[in-house]
């Protein structure tokens, strides 16, 4: 197992390096025109452009630029670590903005992830056990709803109904409205403000996971080793939980890692509806405004998260399924 993990970690590091190269290439080298002008924001003055050229070393040969790029990332630039430069549009160092927004997105995504994992797997298991019954059909109906209902519609709907700023019946208005409240300010408010967006974000995924768990478990339950478990005299509950579930969770784990990683930069709609000021809405705005330093930063961030979570998924998979360790 240890050799497996070490191999995977080494490989992950290699991948991250390749990602930095590709990112650099796409944003710095490939596009035509003056890169300094591109990085200098909306309406740059000549001095700003010169400053940018100086800061990013854009008059140097490309390999030196790349070296500088990587060095900044690893050791930080004049604004701190990681060295992501300065956003000339919003006039703040990119890293400051990032460190402000990242926790919000992380809480949102992880909160939703926990919710959808629990909901999805539980519903999936019940569905699989009661295959064809009323509970199964209801669960799959819920899944269909969750997959089809647009997130922004759901978001606006629950805000309307449950938020104290909404227009719905007074009795239901128990939750606060949009916006994020930092934990340091008020743990209670922080938590309350998290409830709605996390739930909405998790609904879609819970639906997927319910279907997937159901399918995976149904397939597993027809395996021969399940029959052996029953032949040993195990209770049906033990057969399902100890023997069935473990074997059916492996595809779920893999998907889970990818889904969570992709949401770091991708929970755009939820963040917008709930005025969350997280990473997703940040990069959306930046893209429309051609605010390159921000875009580059988020691309790198997203890639790092994907690699990291894939690594965790691989390790979890190997822990679940010992056959994988010997590859």
């Amino acid at each position, binding site marked *: 197992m240890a*050799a497996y993990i*070490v*191999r995977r970690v*080494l490989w992950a590091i290699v991948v991250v390096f390749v990602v930095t190269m590709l990112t650099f290439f796409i944003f710095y080298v490939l596009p035509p025109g003056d890169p300094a002008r591109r990085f200098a924001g909306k309406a740059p003055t000549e001095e700003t452009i010169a400053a940018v050229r100086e800061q990013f070393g854009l008059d140097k040969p490309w390999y030196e630029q790349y070296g500088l790029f990587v060095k900044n990332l690893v050791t930080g630039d004049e604004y701190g670590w990681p060295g992501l430069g300065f956003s000339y549009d919003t006039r703040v160092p990119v890293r400051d903005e990032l460190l402000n927004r990242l926790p919000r997105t992380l809480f949102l995504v992880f909160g939703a992830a926990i919710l959808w994992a629990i909901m999805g797997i539980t519903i999936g298991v019940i569905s699989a056990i009661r295959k064809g019954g009323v509970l199964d059909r209801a669960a799959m109906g819920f899944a269909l709803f969750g997959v089809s209902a647009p997130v922004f519609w759901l978001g606006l709907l629950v805000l309307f109904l449950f938020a104290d700023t909404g227009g719905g019946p007074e009795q239901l208005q128990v939750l606060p409205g949009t916006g994020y409240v930092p934990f340091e300010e008020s743990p209670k408010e922080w938590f309350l403000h998290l409830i709605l967006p996390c739930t909405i974000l998790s609904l879609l995924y819970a639906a997927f996971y319910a279907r997937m768990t159901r399918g995976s478990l149904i397939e597993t339950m027809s395996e021969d080793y399940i029959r052996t478990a029953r032949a040993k005299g195990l209770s049906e509950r033990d057969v399902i939980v100890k023997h069935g579930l473990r074997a059916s969770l492996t595809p779920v784990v893999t998907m889970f890692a990818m889904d969570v990683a992709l949401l770091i930069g991708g929970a755009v709609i939820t963040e917008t509806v709930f005025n969350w000021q997280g990473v997703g809405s940040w990069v959306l705005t930046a893209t429309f405004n051609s605010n390159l330093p921000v875009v580059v930063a988020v691309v790198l961030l997203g890639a790092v998260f994907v690699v990291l979570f894939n690594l965790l998924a691989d390790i979890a998979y190997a822990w679940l399924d010992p056959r994988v360790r010997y590859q």
Partner: protein
Amino acid sequence: MSEAATQAAALEPRLRAEPLLEVEHLTKRFPIHRGLLQRTAGYVHAVEDVSFTVGRGETLGLVGESGCGKSTTARLVLKLIEATSGTVKFNGRDITRFSRREMRPLRREMQIVFQDPYSSLNPRQTVGQIIGAPYAIHKTEGSRKRIVQELMDRVGLNPEHYNRYPHEFSGGQRQRIGVARALALSPKLIVCDEPVSALDVSIQAQILNLLQALQRDFDLTYLFISHDLGVVRHISDRIAVMYLGRIVEIAPADLLYSEPRHPYTAALLSAVPKGRVDGAQTGRIVLQGDVPSPVDPPPGCPFHPRCPKAHLIAGKDAVPEVCRTEMPPLGRLSQDHYAACWYPLEPGDELERAAHA
């Protein structure tokens, strides 16, 4: 006789037939990757120095247990995988190094029938399409449908079922479809890879009879692979016994079963449940342990760790020096009978047998 001469003699074709297939020193090794950097840590010796010939119109049975290399050999012969070394000659031509393009016209002459009638047929194609597919690849004249229906009739299927799908047929019928497909282009050689193993006993017999009838009518040559000794005896003219990637004995079928010379062959035959109820129950020859893995096999004869004859000669748990250190060549024991053993079985050898309850 010198080793080279013995080997050359082993390649002698049968008296009446010219060789259709000649295989010499065929070897296939699969590398194993291990460790942090996935370096090649060793090899699986799937097929090791295999030589045999199959005459026109003959059936050569290839028999052995799992890991012996019989299926790999079949695929090497058909060039479905590339050999590590050795040669394959088909109809006198050396096809070992033929490219895909060069092989294409030859493929109509060598076909295969697979083991599993359930997974070897495309479930989305009709029977007519499956059997007729070869005609699309190798252009033929005449109405394709008519030819296919004639073929279906030949193998015992109802030609009116031309448009049915595989799942509408039983296992035995699906295997007939597989046979028809193999026959479509009038091949010279058909490799049968465990064609009846997945079928019920009563259906097995039907398919075996069909294969024999077709061989007579179409002058087919079979390379018949199976682990079932009864089936192989029934259909083969000669049989080659394989162990750990090597041929340990080749002989005409009846001779192999009545006078096996290699200790492994004898053990294999004695292990088959024969159901003698006349009281003549001979005990099973005892073999220790499981079939070993073909990864980095021991030096000397691959069978020596389990060989009952070796123990007979050298005493319990001991093995003669030569068996342990040198690989026995496939030596000629009599006309057509070859065995790779330093101490082939002689009449009167009392091998250790299990007491039979």
